[in-house]
């Protein structure tokens, strides 16, 4: 089965206004292989795959699918040629249900009608294959982002394509779900399906990929076999330098208590949550998907109207009725869903970064100080290494990872005292992850208190000094990070209470 | 009458009445060999002012205006006065400005004429429905005023429902259908225009109450004349819009040639009953 090229892309060039996203890139894919496509945020990975699928038109270059030269004008043509893609930014229809989304455009028919019985049956089959428990009749808008990602995966898998592109499929999944996905990938490989796998999690690459192609700044850097390389080499290819450890050794310096939650409940979301948070510490919150971590954070942030219990802030009871109240008091929440809750996609990078602090950069108390706003944006573009042609670029034109950095910049610009990070490194490259970890260190050094919600257990374990574990809307227990391990967390996360 | 250029500003052409007025004016202009520029305000006073301004830019010799509203038109007339263009008003009068001649029939009198006719036919005793035009328009106001003036004269006459139906045939039908549901006893309907009357006529016919209820309209459009001739409607008040248009153009040409004209030329009203 080796050496049968199902896909070959040669000298692909693609320019967007102000950005050369791809510069003479080569890529090839063999039957039955899983081929990783790596690179920093904005390196051009998604663009290359969009060119392949006929979503973007290439400026130059050639594409051969199974030896035939192709130029797909739209996704339909690509689909017909046996290509399927899992999009990095979820592309689902909010008001249609899971089954309708998965088979959109490929419905089972009964004459002119949709054969719903068969549609649901086939949906069950695909979902079973993925081993997930999602109701085929649930509307997408009612699913959390992890489940939405599974639907997106199911949608691509159900096409029975020969070439399957997975653009960061695991960024919103839990470990458990990732395992299921990997088993599936193994099975697909056996069926001689070729897979392009894009991810920022290098350990995944080593677990399932055969070969790796690395891009940097839109250019082809190299192609290696996974068996003949290691993490350090890949990182070097990606970022052009070596990065020491994945996780920095965090230095905690817990000071006085800044935030205390007592018996916080939100109907149907959170039950009786209590904990306390000190300045200069990082409190990790672990739990399975749907355990209520996001809801707990949002409850503190003033998103829910109905809630009971108390929040004490700097020793006094504080009423937080809206995000504005929270932010005014120095509490900021970074949403896990950057597209829906983080960014204003149609506005520029600068507009997004400054929105929470506009009132502090005024001239004559009335007008936005354009120079100050530009400085602010440029500071974070530099500090966080955001890849954008200028601060005026619209956020919707940035790569996924760089969009995430914009949201983080917005948060930092408010100089908060309590920061709640919800999946902060989702879709972020190794280099940038390290930058964010360093940034957390800087924050706690300045006495900021940090809450870290993450589905990547190593992240929670390595970065926090204390860990709360949630299960079914409740806090099950607290662990000392130094003594905890994945097993201890999983025990609590699956509902076995600590003594 | 060489090289005379007339401007005609009509209130609306969405109503056959004013289409007749325009047609009368235009055919007379053609007959007399003068140029006439017509603009339509679509029943918007501000739009009428703008279009009169546009006409003045084109250096017309006389302005014939059929005001959307008697008060609001004063600005347009003043603008014409300032440009040295004499003004003639048709159908509706103006409350100010220099107007050399006014050609019209009286809407209030027409409403009264219809009311008197109904009272007479019913022996000064009966229950009447009034279908009103678009609230706030001068035609609705004046015709309603005249009609109610007539009703007040007879102690036996009772207006049991007054409802707006937008000068529109479909709405006239709908509103009449609803009124029929709520009023088992109706002797006559007066509508502020024929369109509503004709709509009401269809509703009444569909309800099988044509024999009990007499219908009187206003404007004497072709459909209404036919209905009267067939006995489906009792009467309609004719204002002879085409005649008004013709007379306006005749007068305008006289003005342009420096001849004397009458300050007010009444166009007789006529109640068409068969």
């Amino acid at each position, binding site marked *: 089965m080796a050496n049968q090229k199902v896909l070959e892309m040669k000298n692909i060039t693609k320019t967007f206004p102000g950005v050369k996203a791809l510069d003479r890139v080569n890529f090839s894919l063999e039957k039955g292989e899983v081929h990783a496509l790596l690179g920093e945020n904005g390196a051009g990975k998604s663009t290359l795959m969009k060119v392949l699928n006929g*979503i973007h038109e290439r400026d130059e270059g050639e594409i051969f699918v199974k030896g035939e030269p192709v130029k797909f004008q*739209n*996704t*339909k043509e690509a*689909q017909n040629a046996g290509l399927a893609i899992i*999009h990095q930014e979820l*592309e*689902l*229809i*909010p*008001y*249609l249900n899971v089954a*309708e989304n998965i088979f*959109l*455009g490929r*419905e089972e*028919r009964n004459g002119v*009608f*949709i054969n*719903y019985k068969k549609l649901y049956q086939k949906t069950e089959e695909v979902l079973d294959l993925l081993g997930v*428990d*999602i*109701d085929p009749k*649930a509307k997408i808008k*009612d699913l959390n982002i992890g*489940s939405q990602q599974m639907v997106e995966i199911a949608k691509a898998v159900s096409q029975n394509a020969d070439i399957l592109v997975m653009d960061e499929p695991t960024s919103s999944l839990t470990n458990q779900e990732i395992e299921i996905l990997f088993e599936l990938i193994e099975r697909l490989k056996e069926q001689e399906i070729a897979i392009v796998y894009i991810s920022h999690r290098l350990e995944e690459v080593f677990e399932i990929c055969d070969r790796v192609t690395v891009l940097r700044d839109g250019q082809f850097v190299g192609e290696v076999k996974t068996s003949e390389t290691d993490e350090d080499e890949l990182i070097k290819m990606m970022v052009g330098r070596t990065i020491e450890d994945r996780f920095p050794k965090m230095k905690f310096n817990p000071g006085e208590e800044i935030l205390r939650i007592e018996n916080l409940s939100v109907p149907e979301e959170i039950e009786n949550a209590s904990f306390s948070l000190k300045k200069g510490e990082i409190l990790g919150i672990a739990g399975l*998907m*749907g355990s209520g971590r996001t809801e707990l954070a949002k409850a503190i942030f003033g998103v829910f109207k109905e809630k009971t219990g108390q929040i004490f802030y700097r020793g006094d009871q504080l009423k937080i009725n809206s995000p504005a109240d929270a932010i005014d008091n120095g509490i900021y929440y970074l949403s896990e869903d950057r597209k829906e809750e983080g960014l204003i996609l149609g506005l520029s990078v600068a507009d997004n970064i400054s929105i929470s602090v506009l009132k502090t950069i005024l001239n004559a108390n009335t007008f936005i100080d354009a120079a100050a706003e530009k400085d602010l944006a440029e500071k974070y573009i530099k500090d966080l290494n955001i890849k954008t042609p200028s601060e005026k670029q619209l956020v919707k034109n940035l790569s996924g990872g760089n969009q995430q950095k914009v949201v983080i910049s917005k948060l930092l610009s408010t100089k908060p005292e309590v920061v709640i990070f919800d999946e902060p490194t989702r879709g972020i490259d190794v280099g940038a992850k390290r930058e964010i970890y360093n940034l957390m260190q800087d924050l706690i050094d300045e006495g900021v208190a940090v809450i870290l919600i993450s589905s990547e257990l190593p992240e929670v374990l390595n970065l926090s000094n204390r860990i709360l574990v949630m299960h*079914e809307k409740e806090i099950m227990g607290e662990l000392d990070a130094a003594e905890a391990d994945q097993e201890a967390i999983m025990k609590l996360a699956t509902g076995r209470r600590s003594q | 009458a060489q090289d005379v250029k007339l401007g005609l500003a009509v209130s609306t*052409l*969405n*109503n*056959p009445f004013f*289409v007749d007025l325009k047609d009368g004016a235009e055919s007379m202009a053609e007959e007399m060999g003068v140029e006439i520029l017509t603009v339509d305000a679509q029943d918007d006073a501000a739009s009428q002012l703008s279009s009169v301004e546009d006409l003045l830019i084109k250096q017309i010799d006389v302005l014939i205006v059929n005001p959307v509203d008697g008060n609001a038109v004063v600005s347009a007339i003043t603008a014409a006065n300032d440009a040295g263009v004499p003004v003639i008003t048709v159908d509706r009068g103006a409350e100010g400005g220099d107007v050399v001649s006014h050609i019209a029939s009286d809407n209030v009198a027409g409403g009264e004429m219809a009311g008197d006719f109904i009272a007479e036919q019913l022996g000064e005793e009966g229950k009447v429905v009034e279908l*009103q035009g678009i*609230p706030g328009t001068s035609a609705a106001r004046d015709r309603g005023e005249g009609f109610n003036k007539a009703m007040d004269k007879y102690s036996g006459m009772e207006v*049991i*429902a*007054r*409802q*707006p139906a937008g000068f*529109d*045939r*479909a709405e006239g*039908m*709908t*509103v009449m*259908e*609803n*009124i029929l*549901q*709520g009023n088992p006893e109706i002797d006559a309907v007066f509508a502020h225009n024929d369109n509503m009357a*004709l*709509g009401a006529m*269809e509703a009444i016919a*569909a309800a099988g109450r044509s024999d009990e209820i007499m219908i009187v309209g206003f404007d004497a*459009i*072709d*459909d209404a004349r*036919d209905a009267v001739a067939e006995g489906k409607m009792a009467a309609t008040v004719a204002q002879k819009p085409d005649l008004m248009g013709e007379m306006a153009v005749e007068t305008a040409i006289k003005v342009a040639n420096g001849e004397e004209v009458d300050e007010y030329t009444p166009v007789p009203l006529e109640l068409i009953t068969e």
Partner: protein
Amino acid sequence: MNNLSSIKDKSFLEILNRFKTGIGLLALVIVLSFMSPYFLTVPNLLNVVRQVSIIAIISFGMTMVILTGGIDLSVGSMLAFAGAISAGMIVNTGLNVYLAILIGLAAGTALGLFNGLAVAKAKLPAFIVTLAMMTVARGFTLIYTNGRPISGFDETFRFFGAGYIGAIPVPVIIMFLLLIVIYILLKKTPLGRYIYAIGGNEKATKLSGINTDKIKIAVYALNGFLAAVSGIILTSRLNSAQPMAGEGYELDAIAAVVLGGTSLSGGSGTVIGTIVGALIIAVLNNGLNLLNVSSFYQLVAKGGVILLAVFLDRKSQQQ
């Protein structure tokens, strides 16, 4: 989390919600029943459904257009145009009634098709395209009729607007048939799903390999067709094609759609909601007439009640 009990709760709530969509209408009906003895009678109720049919048929098409995230301001003008064309064919040209109706329907569909092409292919904003069509089609109608009504039809033609089958007025029957067809179209066919999908996320729909342009074109054309159906019924009912017929109906139709719970940004809503919305407007007009509310106060009452109805509906849906 996705356990069964929560799913059951979910769908129970949904059923409750669906029931609640009509709560504004229900409240209105109850209040009017107390206020006027004539309101809750069979003849009056038949009267109301007959009156609602014209606007309802347009608003079915409008529902689909709005579901795709579009809008159509030209329905009233397309209605008048189709009515005038059919009437002209019968009265002036002496054409066979059924042929004349077909030509009227084709005329409406053609105008709608043009809207669709301009929106989908030329990528112009639907608001502007249909606003332009609103004036253009009105202009065509006025030119064709020379601003005068066309009247005088035989019984064959009058059947569609003024006839009965049993005790039921023909327009009501046509409306119900169309309601069922469009309900099924939206719920059970791929086209229907794509209409929702486009309004929900057009990009994603396109990425799923669906020819979104074709669907949008079909929806606008269908809307033109439905406006034409309405126009022909109205012409038949009035026994006259009015050049200014249907003026302002676009607002009534959009109001019916939005009152019925369809979001103006597209992607969610039902045609059942729309008929409820159309009924609210029709019942309100009927009630105000029955109560003989005077003209100026009628406007205030109408606005106030519509606001109240939508308020009740939305409140009850937030459980």
